[in-house]
């Protein structure tokens, strides 16, 4: 056996290329293509009364200008609703170009095609669009009030309403000895990959075919969507995701208006655009016309016993889905199910309203609804602990699902339409590791020490469970070439995560070849046409298992052919470093390259090695050269399709320091314990955790989308949207557990989103601990913390019981009867 690659911190195959500027991103392609630019709505809500393109058409170099009126066939229909759901009773999607009405600033209204982007922008600036402004619905309170409607035929602004329940929550809460209510709020952020979107399409008039390059997370699905919109047979459309400079969710949405418009225009203008048409999104466009996430209001009502054990949990969520719902209601579904984390909630009821606003659409961003759910659950855990005067870690521990209880059915339906059943995990062990890593038990001493030096510090923790590796399927193709090189293809895409490395590690082990001999292609429909896409921490689980299964098939075939050549039983053979040999008799061997030659019976010797497979060189003349149930070639493809998701989990703890004068928040330590099953490549997993934590810290302390009441995004640039720099991100300390999944051949779970999920929850927990008053809303800036301190001082924000010394553990309070079942034994400390 070659040294095992699975589990080794192998250096990323991609890096030499990407780090030396040899990557090929969308804008590196199509230098001679025409350029598209878009006239976008400056209004959040308006009727388009007139479009005058006369002046624009006069700009030198303009090739074409399109409005909605020019769209033909299925291009004139709304963009597809990607994920329908019965609870999404009022779905709305945009037209590729606005049809009479615009619903958010940035919505495309006119498309200009010109010789280059500068000219296209000059012309776009001369297009005169007349608008009749309508009242804009901005923010969840405005959407809920329904004083104005985003879509006239949805007067209450409710796109979807879903209730899931397990048990009788009202009864459970009524019977609970303690009840608390919390109002929570989390603001918008966004994926903001360093490379925005982009699409480059070229029509081949000779072949009547279209090639589309797009910076996407789902090339097979873009292909299908473009073919459907343009009425082309699928085989006439290729779609390729070149190097993609980050996605984080925003590029799973498709087809974007620009994707279909550029493809459509490339075909329509073929004679004028022999080199195709390209559009590269600029940063401003990305802010106002791609997608955002996170914005929710939540109301939690929880009943619990004196150990902090949950008896009933009732959560209502108002989710801001922006102007349209192309991606369905995946985000709030994930919030409402993954909110439960590692806990048993007792009776549970979760109701959400997904609401329209005149803002950019909301679709999954790394974490995809989980950060909000974890925020709700973990704020609740902290509130319970503070209410009872118990240790925050202990309150969590009493609610954990035990390792012996796995698999554990939460009784809900998950985002993939399947039951929410946790496959494995050892939450108590994870928590023990976290407490040891951060020094949970020693913190009080540290706090005293810091306090004596005039410093204010706090500690927080947060736990999560993450459904990863959702279906329906992925496939893999593995081919050993006659050079001995192994070519692997999978249809899902890569945005820099390291798929090429990880999949090569898996295939190298399965096949018994050197890692360097394996080359992996992702996201190219010419190589593999069936795929779902890269999202939901699914690539390693789905494509990893698929390429492993395909490699196993290839291995079997190689052993069979080599067995014939070596006159040995295949079960006596092994493959080591690309050579098939008899176990214990390594002299009796044949290289895989030769096996590849033999696998393909030939008439013509195209090179020296091929001679071995020609008709006068091999073969039992009594049998057909290719057996009845065989195929030529040393290659195979296979698919992996699980019955359900596999559930990773983790826990984070942070120590923060808050400046008593300036209210700045510094993260002194950030500790992560993470369990995604066996690690294929620990270095890559840690990198994923680092990046996730960076985005978690970003969402907690820096990033937000600042809309004014008119629906203008006030911080649509990296100057004012405060994506943190490396200097703002703490060192991340990581420890792992490796609880295998029983669900898939490799036993693995996804790791892509983990790092970001508990960011706002854990930092809120620590700030609250440092400050001594409740934090109910994230993100938080120094200015806001300063204002909160003033509100607390004025009695408008409740303090923590543990710091105000209001009281201690109720079980030890004189005169307290633990049997008292009156629900208002603790009157709900409802906040405003």
């Amino acid at each position, binding site marked *: 056996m070659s040294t095992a690659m699975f589990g080794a911190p192998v250096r990323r195959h991609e890096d030499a290329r990407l780090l030396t500027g040899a990557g090929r991103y969308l804008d590196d392609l199509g230098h001679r293509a025409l350029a598209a630019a878009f006239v976008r709505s*400056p209004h959040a809500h308006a009727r388009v009364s007139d479009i005058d393109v006369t002046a624009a058409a006069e700009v030198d170099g303009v090739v074409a200008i399109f409005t909605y009126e020019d769209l033909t066939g299925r291009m004139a229909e709304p963009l597809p609703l990607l994920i329908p759901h019965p609870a999404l009773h009022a779905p709305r999607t945009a037209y590729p170009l606005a049809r009479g009405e615009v619903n958010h600033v940035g919505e495309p209204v006119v498309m200009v095609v010109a010789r280059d*982007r*500068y000219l296209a922008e000059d012309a776009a*600036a001369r297009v005169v669009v007349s608008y009749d402004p309508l009242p804009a619905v901005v923010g969840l309170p405005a959407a809920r009030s329904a004083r104005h409607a985003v879509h006239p035929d949805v007067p209450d602004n409710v796109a979807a309403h879903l209730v899931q329940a397990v048990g009788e929550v009202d009864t459970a809460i009524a019977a609970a000895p303690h009840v608390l209510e919390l109002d929570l709020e989390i603001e918008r952020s966004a994926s903001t990959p360093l490379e925005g979107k982009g699409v480059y399409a070229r029509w081949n008039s000779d072949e009547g075919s279209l090639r589309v390059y797009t910076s996407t997370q789902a090339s097979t699905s873009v292909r299908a969507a473009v073919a459907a919109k343009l009425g082309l047979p699928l085989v006439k459309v290729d779609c390729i995701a070149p190097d993609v400079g980050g996605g984080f969710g925003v590029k799973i949405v498709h087809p974007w208006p620009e994707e279909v418009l550029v493809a459509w225009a490339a075909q329509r203008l073929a004679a004028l655009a022999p080199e195709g048409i390209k559009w590269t999104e*600029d940063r401003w466009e990305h802010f106002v016309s791609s997608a955002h996430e996170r914005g929710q209001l939540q109301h939690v009502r929880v009943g619990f016993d004196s150990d902090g054990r949950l008896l009933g949990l009732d959560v209502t969520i108002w989710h801001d889905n922006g102007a349209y719902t192309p991606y369905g209601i995946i985000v709030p579904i994930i919030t409402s199910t993954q909110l439960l984390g590692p806990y048993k909630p007792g009776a549970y009821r979760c109701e959400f309203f997904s609401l329209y606003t005149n803002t950019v659409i909301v679709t999954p961003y790394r974490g995809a609804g989980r950060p909000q759910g974890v925020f709700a659950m973990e704020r609740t855990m902290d509130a319970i602990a503070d209410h009872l005067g118990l240790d925050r870690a202990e309150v969590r521990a009493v609610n954990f699902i035990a390792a012996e209880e796995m698999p554990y059915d939460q009784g809900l339906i998950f985002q993939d339409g399947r039951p929410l059943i946790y496959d494995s995990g050892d939450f108590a062990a994870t928590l023990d590791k976290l407490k040891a890593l951060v020094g949970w038990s020693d913190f009080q001493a540290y706090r005293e020490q810091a306090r004596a030096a005039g410093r204010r510090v706090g500690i927080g923790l947060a736990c999560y469970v993450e459904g990863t590796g959702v279906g329906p399927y992925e496939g893999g193709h593995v081919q050993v070439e006659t050079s001995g090189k192994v070519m692997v293809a999978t249809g899902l895409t890569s945005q820099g995560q390291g798929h090429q490395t990880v999949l090569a590690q898996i295939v190298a082990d399965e096949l018994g070849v050197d890692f360097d001999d394996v080359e992996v292609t992702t996201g190219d429909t010419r190589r593999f046409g069936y795929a779902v896409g890269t999202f939901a921490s699914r690539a390693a689980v789905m494509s990893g298992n698929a390429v492993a299964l395909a490699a196993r098939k290839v291995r079997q075939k190689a052993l069979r052919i080599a067995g014939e050549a070596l006159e040995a039983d295949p079960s006596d053979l092994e493959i080591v470093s690309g050579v098939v040999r008899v176990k214990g008799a390594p002299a009796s061997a044949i290289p895989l390259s030769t096996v590849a030659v033999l696998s393909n019976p030939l008439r013509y010797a195209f090179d020296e090695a091929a001679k071995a497979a020609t008709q006068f060189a091999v073969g039992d003349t009594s049998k057909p050269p290719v057996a009845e149930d065989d195929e030529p070639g040393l290659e195979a493809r296979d698919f992996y399709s699980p019955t359900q998701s596999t559930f990773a989990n983790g826990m984070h703890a942070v120590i923060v320091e808050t400046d008593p004068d*300036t209210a700045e928040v510094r993260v002194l330590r950030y500790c992560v314990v993470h369990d995604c099953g066996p690690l294929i490549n620990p270095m890559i997993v840690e990198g994923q955790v680092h990046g996730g934590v960076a985005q978690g810290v970003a969402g907690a302390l820096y990033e937000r989308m600042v809309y004014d009441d008119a629906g203008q995004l006030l911080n649509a640039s990296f100057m004012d949207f405060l994506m943190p*720099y490396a*200097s703002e991100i703490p060192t991340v300390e990581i420890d792992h557990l490796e609880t295998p999944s029983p669900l898939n051949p490799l036993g693995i779970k996804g790791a892509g989103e983990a790092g970001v999920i508990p960011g706002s929850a854990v930092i809120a927990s620590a700030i609250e601990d440092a400050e001594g008053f409740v934090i109910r809303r994230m993100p938080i800036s*120094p200015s806001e913390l*300063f204002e909160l301190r003033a509100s607390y001082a004025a009695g408008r924000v409740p303090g923590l019981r543990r710091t105000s010394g209001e009281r201690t553990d109720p079980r030890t309070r004189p005169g307290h009867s633990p049997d008292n079942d009156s629900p208002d034994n603790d009157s709900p400390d409802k906040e405003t």
Partner: protein
Amino acid sequence: MSGGRITALKPAPFGYSAPASLAEALAVLAEVGEHAKVLAGGQSLLPLLSMRLAAPRHLVDINRVPGLDRVEIVDGSVRVGALVRHTDLERHEGAAAAQPLLRQALRLVGHPTIRNRGTCVGSIAHADPAAELPGVLVVLGGRVEASTAWGSRQVPAAEFFLSPLETALRPGELATSVSFPVAGPRTGTAFVELSRRRGDYALVGVAAVVELAPDTSISSARVGLVSVGPTPLLVDLSEVLVGRPGGARELAAAAALALEHAEPEADIHASAQYRARLVEVLTTRALAQALANASHEEAA
């Protein structure tokens, strides 16, 4: 840059010249006058062009003009030519010794990549009310040399900054250098600011200069405040500090006086109250540091 409406990230058409001498640069500026913009490091101008928030008809790129890249210590001033990059001045030992406030402030300007290209004079000509160097020029009482084809004039700092992004430079004038007075004996300086991310423009920034008398009591004290007014603000704190040692209570009184002169406003990053609080906290911190540096000077 919040507020303006962005509509694209590609500049509108413009003319361009790259003169090879100062005389030629001044001649071109004289010709194109009010429709021209000088292009120095481009770190502020190019984003404005790309967002079409500015659309000058002509750019005069001064990067090939010889002789503008000198740092000289002459006539009691550090004289900084129009092509001296932030990094050049930050690393200039002579300048740091002559006027320590320069290095203290320059370290806070953007990031190394921006400082490698951006110019000190450009930063002052650009007159962003949150920028560090305008605050330094004001607190030190420096001046700007403004040149045209017909001659040059010296504009004192106090008269140079008119409003956000607006200065006393006239159409066709090139700022050829700025001069920062060197520090006197027993003088300490400090630049303290708070920005949301390292290298960002400050929410509030305070440049402090404190001079000690031979008996180590304070003989003069002033601060330059940035990001709390349309231009950098100079506040003379002598009335509360002169003749005193600079204890905690005196610094608090000085901070309160500084706040009286500040005009903090709310924006999307900070409330007006918070900015006001920062004026006090950062003024106190800057004065304390400047005092410590002055005592250190004195001891040396």
